[in-house]
């Protein structure tokens, strides 16, 4: 029942841990997705605001130039227009078309410079009247502005705040300008035309006066674009680069951590708007920017590690609990067994001692027998107590050995002699195979004796029908071997190592009939191992079990085989 409780506890640990672990991983994944989404939104926002800044800059320039041009009206002087072109860095060319449609500036009557000729070629369609100046049907400035605002809003899908504000601010002004136009001689309309010519973008600003004169200036695009470059600062986030692409998709300018590959995947993009048609700002990311993903992987790993640690720790604790439980059980049975084993000889001693003291035994021979029994039982008791004491000392590593070179044959003979009488009484045949020559070994004599006695005790206790014990002594080059062999039922393979465990007794009908502490073999092996040898258990050929004691040879004798 206790075991199943432990299993239950383990399940109680396993299931919630796994469940919580799975939940956490799921949460982490969601968090990663959320963070990635947030980053993407933020990036789109940044790119959008940069595009807006660029658009605003261009708009400011355009508005400024239109203002400068309108100031020259309503009757613009050709020489002041020329002066404007000569001195204003953002003016590339100026022009004037009189109400009849004739181009007065650039002046065709004088030799044209290459630049002037180029200008006329570019705007041929416009200056000849093939293309209308106005981009919208309405002609008043107010409506033109409103249309720009509407167009911008349609492209950007959000309210162009600046255009909105501008409209508001101009509300009164537009009315004034219209009044001026009514009064005669005022400015009728003005606008900026993005003009495409041979793959290039040109910007032409024009003003129309009340009498129908159209004049204006072509913007120096190179200068305008050059002034946009400082807006494109490298992104602060590592692993990001941004680029401004012109209308044909070529990179105009780039800034950031790495060189932009125009074919690479675009992380976020925003169009600049109507002020630079088809121009856009692109943001790119390289691997370095995916630290968010790395964090997710790392945290998942940590969670997994935590789960594993919890399970391992829990398992270890439960395993320890299980072992403690088992040890407790063994100790309890040990105590019961030892008590019983102590009790039995004590009872016998008391019984015989009582008989002798009450002077009830007349026969001398019987009296000697009784005394002998008392002595034997006392010895057995002593051995048992010694075992327990030894065990205690061994457990606390306080056992002291007296190592010396002993003649093993002599020790074996002497030890077994003390048991001969008992063995005969129990109907055991004892056979000893001892070599003639001396077999020296380095060991503690008492320990060897005790181990031999433990083995013999076991052979007697568990022999059942096999009433024969064989002792064998062999001296080899590197070790001395003493074998104690019985002809009992034998020890199952599974138990051959378990029997050396403290308090362990094979659970069988045989052991339940006999008393035992479960310590004998434990002690014997520990003693032999402490002294540089070992005690092993093997099945014997022809039935039964054999126990082999190995002892170390003295150093000077190594190499001499017997």
């Amino acid at each position, binding site marked *: 029942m206790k075991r199943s409780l432990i299993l239950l506890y383990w399940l109680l640990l396993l299931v919630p841990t796994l469940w919580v672990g799975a939940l956490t991983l799921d949460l982490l994944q969601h968090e990663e997705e959320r963070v990635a989404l947030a980053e993407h939104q933020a990036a789109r926002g940044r790119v959008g605001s940069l595009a807006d800044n660029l658009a605003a800059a261009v708009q400011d320039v355009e508005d400024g130039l239109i203002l400068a041009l309108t100031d020259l009206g309503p009757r613009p002087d050709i020489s002041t227009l020329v002066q404007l072109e*000569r*001195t*204003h*860095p*953002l003016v*590339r060319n100026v022009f004037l078309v009189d109400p009849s449609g004739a181009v007065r500036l650039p*002046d065709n*009557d*004088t*030799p044209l*410079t290459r630049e002037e000729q180029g200008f006329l070629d570019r705007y041929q369609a416009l200056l000849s009247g093939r293309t209308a100046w106005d981009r919208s049907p309405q002609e008043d400035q107010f409506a033109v502005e409103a249309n720009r605002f509407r167009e911008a809003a349609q492209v950007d899908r959000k309210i162009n705040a600046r255009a909105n504000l501008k409209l508001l601010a101009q509300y009164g002004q537009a009315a004034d300008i219209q009044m001026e136009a009514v009064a005669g001689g005022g400015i009728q309309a003005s606008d900026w035309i993005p003009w495409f010519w041979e793959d290039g973008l040109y910007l032409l600003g024009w003003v129309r006066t009340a009498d129908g004169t159209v004049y204006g200036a072509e913007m*120096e*695009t*190179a*200068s305008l*674009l*050059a*002034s946009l*470059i*400082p807006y494109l600062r*490298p992104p602060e986030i590592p692993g990001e680069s941004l680029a401004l692409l012109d209308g044909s998709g070529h*990179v*105009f*300018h*780039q*800034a*950031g951590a790495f*060189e*932009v590959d125009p074919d690479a995947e675009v992380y976020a993009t925003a169009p600049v708007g109507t002020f630079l048609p088809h121009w856009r700002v692109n943001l790119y990311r390289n691997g370095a920017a995916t630290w968010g993903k790395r964090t997710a992987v790392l945290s998942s790993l940590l969670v997994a590690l935590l789960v594993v640690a919890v399970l391992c720790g829990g398992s270890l604790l439960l395993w320890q609990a299980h072992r403690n439980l088992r040890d407790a059980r063994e100790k309890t049975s040990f105590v019961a067994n030892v008590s019983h084993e102590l009790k039995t000889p004590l009872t016998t001693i008391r019984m015989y001692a009582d008989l002798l003291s009450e002077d009830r035994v007349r026969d001398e021979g019987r009296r000697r027998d009784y005394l002998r029994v008392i002595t034997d039982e006392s010895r057995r008791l002593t051995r048992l107590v010694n075992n327990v004491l030894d065990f205690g000392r061994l457990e606390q590593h306080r056992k002291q050995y007296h190592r010396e070179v002993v003649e093993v044959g002599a020790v074996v003979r002497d030890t077994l002699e003390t048991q001969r009488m008992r063995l005969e009484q129990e109907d055991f045949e004892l056979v000893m195979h001892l070599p003639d020559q001396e077999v020296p070994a380095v060991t503690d004599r008492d320990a060897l004796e005790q181990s031999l006695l433990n083995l013999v005790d076991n052979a007697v206790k568990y022999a059942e029908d096999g009433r024969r014990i064989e002792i064998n002594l062999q001296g080899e080059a590197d070790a001395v071997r003493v074998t104690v062999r019985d002809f009992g039922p034998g020890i199952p393979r599974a138990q051959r190592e378990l029997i050396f465990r403290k308090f362990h007794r094979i659970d069988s009908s045989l052991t339940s009939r006999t008393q035992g502490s479960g310590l004998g073999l434990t002690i014997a092996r520990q003693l032999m191992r402490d002294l540089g040898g070992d005690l092993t258990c093997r099945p014997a050929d022809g039935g039964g079990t054999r126990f082999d004691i190995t002892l170390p040879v003295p150093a000077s004798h190594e190499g001499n085989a017997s």
Partner: protein
Amino acid sequence: MRTIHLLTAAALTALVTASAPAKEVTCRVELDRSVLPAGRPQTTVVKVTLDAPPPPRETERPPVNLAIVLDRSGSMTGRKIEKAKDAAIEALRRLGPQDRFSLVIYNHQVETLIASQSTSRTEWIESRIREIRADGNTALFGGVSQAAAEIRRQLDGNFVHRIILLSDGLANVGPSSPADLARLGASLLKEQISVTTVGVGADFNEDLMTQLAQNSDGNTYFVESSNDLPHIFAAELGDVLSVVARKVILEIECPEGLRPLRIIGRDGRIRGRRVELNLNQLYGGQEKYTLIEIEVPAGRVDETREIASAHCRYEDALTQKAVSCSGNVSARFSPDEQEVLASNNKEVQGELVRNRIALAKDKAIRLMDEGKKQQAVQELKQEFEELRIYNADNRLPDVMQEEARELAENAEQLDQDGLSKVHRKTLRNESYQMRNQQRIKQ
């Protein structure tokens, strides 16, 4: 006799104008010949020269606002970038505490390495320059734009603004055509910012570099070996430091009946009878001139007519005061061919020949670009022949003939070898430096 009087009068006038206060620019107007054949319409060439006084002493010069733009694209690795860094440091060392210095480096991206500042922390600036490493592509337009932004930090004040651009390769990030850079140059000129271009090696686009320099009235150099870079920068700094006149505008007007036909070798505007040229700036001791071809109607015998008058307005670089100077020239008509011949101004005619040589080189390059090799060779040979006749007719000294021979030699080379990258750069540069009277030629 009259010729001598005229010449003496001209000489005296010249002396008078020369002995004017030493610090002022003077305006000289000359004709290719002071006596014109009477009775028929013809064309004549007027040379208007602006003489700038000798360079001011170190302590008196106006402060300089210098921005250097260094190409650090991958092609600059090794010796080139090291020499470029030496050159930049060389330039830095020639500036004084009242000057401003900034450095922009570019590959496919543009970075301001040294923001515009006074040159008091030279060690720190030098160490930053030494750290420059080369790799990547070439965003030339971006580099120049950023340098202009650095210059604009100190646009107010009496500084002489100069950008020195160094490149060894083709621009391939951002606007990269000569036309784009030409427009940028023109716009910068209006802000009184000049860009001097230094091309290293054989792979840069010389048209781009010369047009950028020309439109912004800067100098241009073609440096085959990067070893020459420090020397070029130092010489350029010498030039920049000696600006005496800024915002130089030259107007030449012809009286009624005469008409300016074309400006030889320079860009300018002809409006009716007036020619307007922007000469931007003059260095100390420099002689900047322009040649105008003018149509003259038939003149009566012994009539003296004014051919052209020139008026020059400029700003004194040191005092920022507006100053002007003017000059004019007249010619007499004579039926005597000998008299006409004797009145030849060989100096003016020599300059005309040189300019025609320069223009012929440009034309040859254009024709070679269009693949018309035979036509290019033919044009050069023809121009050489015409100049030979011109030289002979006007009895010009032999040295002019030898200079014209260049055309024949170039024609031979084109015919045999075609137009190599180096040859094209050399031609382009020679023409530019001639037509712009660049002081430091190579």
